[in-house]
């Protein structure tokens, strides 16, 4: 991320938005929901873009992160922030179970991971002694108050999730520009060529899976402490995979800002425009957006705008 992009983004996110709407809990809660999706979308895009794997199972990581953090904070009185970190680590550990699936490609990998996600959900339902089963976990502690600032407030939660998402974006960027990123990029279309120069492609893919799972787990944990309640149906909802996917396709998964712009854009469009226009069945618009984007701009909105912008600049120059 170049500095001239970074500074305006930081200014908007940390100064302009809190200044304009910090007191408006409605806008803040919409933004929190959107950034939670953005966080998962980013993790999903990282796996798709760097690892070359399309996952139908990110709800598994989301759910594991949510449950682990909630249960650790309730049963072992872990501080919430430590719980969130553990949620991410737990999700990464859970992804070890998926390592055998790394041998699979395309739709096969996607389906295998979906199966894993379903299995995790059933386990959460069945291990009642640990997870409370279908009843769900209530009274999950909220984000703490630090030096007088209440992070469980809408503005506070917004700052937390935005910071996490930006940190993740930064890490994604660092991975992408590193040698690992270059090797991963090369692996997509020329795997043998990459392996014969010494790249352990399976290990690299596994690392991307861990990173993606960790990020998703952290976001799932934040969401659990934000909503204060989870049950298997909610925490492992397939929607935690699908909505971020829509966001990524909308924003574009090759770019760094694509998932973020896509998530915030599609969430706000859906909630403020589509819902007002059609009410029942407004998801139809999400389907239409997906289809249209894939057909006409498979690289997403951000590159599309970027191209337009470049063309305009060139025309002016």
């Amino acid at each position, binding site marked *: 991320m170049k500095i001239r992009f970074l500074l305006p983004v930081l200014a908007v996110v940390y100064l302009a938005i809190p200044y304009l709407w910090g007191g408006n809990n409605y806008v803040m809660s919409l933004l*929190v929901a959107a950034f939670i999706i953005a966080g998962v979308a980013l993790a999903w895009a990282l796996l798709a873009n760097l690892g070359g794997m399309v996952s139908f199972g990110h709800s598994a990581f989301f759910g594991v992160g949510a449950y682990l953090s909630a249960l650790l904070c309730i049963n072992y009185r872990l501080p919430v922030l430590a719980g969130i970190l553990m949620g991410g680590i737990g999700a990464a550990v859970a992804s070890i179970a998926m390592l055998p699936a790394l041998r699979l490609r395309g739709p096969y990998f996607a389906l295998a991971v979906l199966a894993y996600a379903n299995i995790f959900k059933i386990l959460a339902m069945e291990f009642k002694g640990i997870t409370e089963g*279908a*009843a*769900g976990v209530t009274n999950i502690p909220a984000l703490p108050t630090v030096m007088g600032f209440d992070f469980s407030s809408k503005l506070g939660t917004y700052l937390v999730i935005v910071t996490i998402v930006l940190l993740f974006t930064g890490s994604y960027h660092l991975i992408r520009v590193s040698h690992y990123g270059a090797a991963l990029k090369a692996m997509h279309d020329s795997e043998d060529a990459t392996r014969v120069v010494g790249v352990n492609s399976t290990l690299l893919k596994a690392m991307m899976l861990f990173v993606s799972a960790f990020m998703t787990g952290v976001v799932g944990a934040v*969401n659990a402490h934000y909503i*204060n309640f*989870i*049950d298997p149906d*909610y925490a492992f909802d397939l929607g935690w995979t699908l909505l971020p996917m829509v966001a990524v396709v909308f924003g574009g998964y090759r770019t760094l800002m694509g998932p973020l712009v896509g998530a915030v854009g599609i969430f706000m469009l859906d909630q403020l425009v589509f*819902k007002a226009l059609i009410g029942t069945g407004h998801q139809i618009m999400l389907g239409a957006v997906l289809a249209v984007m894939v057909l006409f701009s498979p690289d997403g909105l951000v590159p599309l705008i970027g191209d337009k912008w470049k063309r305009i600049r060139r025309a002016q120059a």
Partner: protein
Amino acid sequence: MEFAKKLAQTAAILSLAAFASTAVADEFVVGSNLPLTGPQARWGQEVAEGFKLATEAFNRGSAKHKIKLIVTDDEGNPAKASAAAEKMISDGAVALYGGFPTPAVVGAANVATKAGLVYMSSGYGGTKADFKNFFQINAISGYQKAIAGTMLDMGAKSVSLIHNTKEGSAYVATAVAKALTDKGVKVTMHPYDSAIADFKPIINKIKLQDRPELISMVGYESEYIGMLRAAKVLKPEVKAIVCAYGVATPKMMADFPAELQNVYGTTMLSYPAEFATKDGKEFAEAFKKTFNKDPDYLAQFGYVSGQVLFEAIARAANAGTIAKGGIAAEMRKTDRETITGRVTFDETGFNPHFVLRMGQIQGNKIPLIWPKEAATGKMNFPGLPW
């Protein structure tokens, strides 16, 4: 001197507050977050209709205070419910009412609690809620009482209980099982996941292994039909089939007359609705006139919740305590007969008097057959769809 000054200040603040409350006394905003779209939409819409009807009825009957209702679709999603609650509070809502499923209720109730407002719900699936000003006229215990009560009155010694593993159903099933086991009834549980396609293996297990006197089912509409059809094929030797919510409704009866004959289901109303009270008659007529269909029990929950909440708001407004948590205090004082029975709230916010009734589908009627004092018809027992 110091004391007098303080007194004067307090008086000034009080009179200001009183002025403020009289200034807005003619109209109070009440917000409602409900799943009007998404998988819980059907329940959300029924409840919304009842709640709307209560608003109209209240506004017609009250010259002094009016209720302005805002309904927001939360799609049954907690984050969206939370946002909806924030929006309605910022639009001036003095109390909130909402939705399904439990996570969405929690999402919105948290917001209301933080803002110090009353949150009323019809869809919290747990047995105890942990919010300060939370109220719900119905409770899981009501289903348990009706299902277990009916089966105990049937004199059953053994019951097989088939239930969905989802939150609400699992709660009801566990509570029923406990109530029955406490009375010495042998209960066998058969939980199933929504993904199930064929119930015959379960029913056959019941038929050949459990050999119970009764079968009880707790799940959703399409699953009841699947279970009943499977039972109709295998014909286990039981005396009755007792279901939870979603079965004894006029719509289900009209759509699946053959499958549902003689089946029992929890409900609030007989069909055709026979209201003993003036209140009930008014409700049924008004509902039919407004929505051109028969009310079901969810509409009743919405209606009664509205009645109770609006009356509490009116009382608090009269006392000038709206701004000081008066609505919650007035809610706690609630004690009235409604079309769903007596309503008061215990310290957890649930209505201890809440009991559902049990109806049985007989021909094209659904008479109430339990409890005895509410019965409008005779129980066909033993009675089976085949």
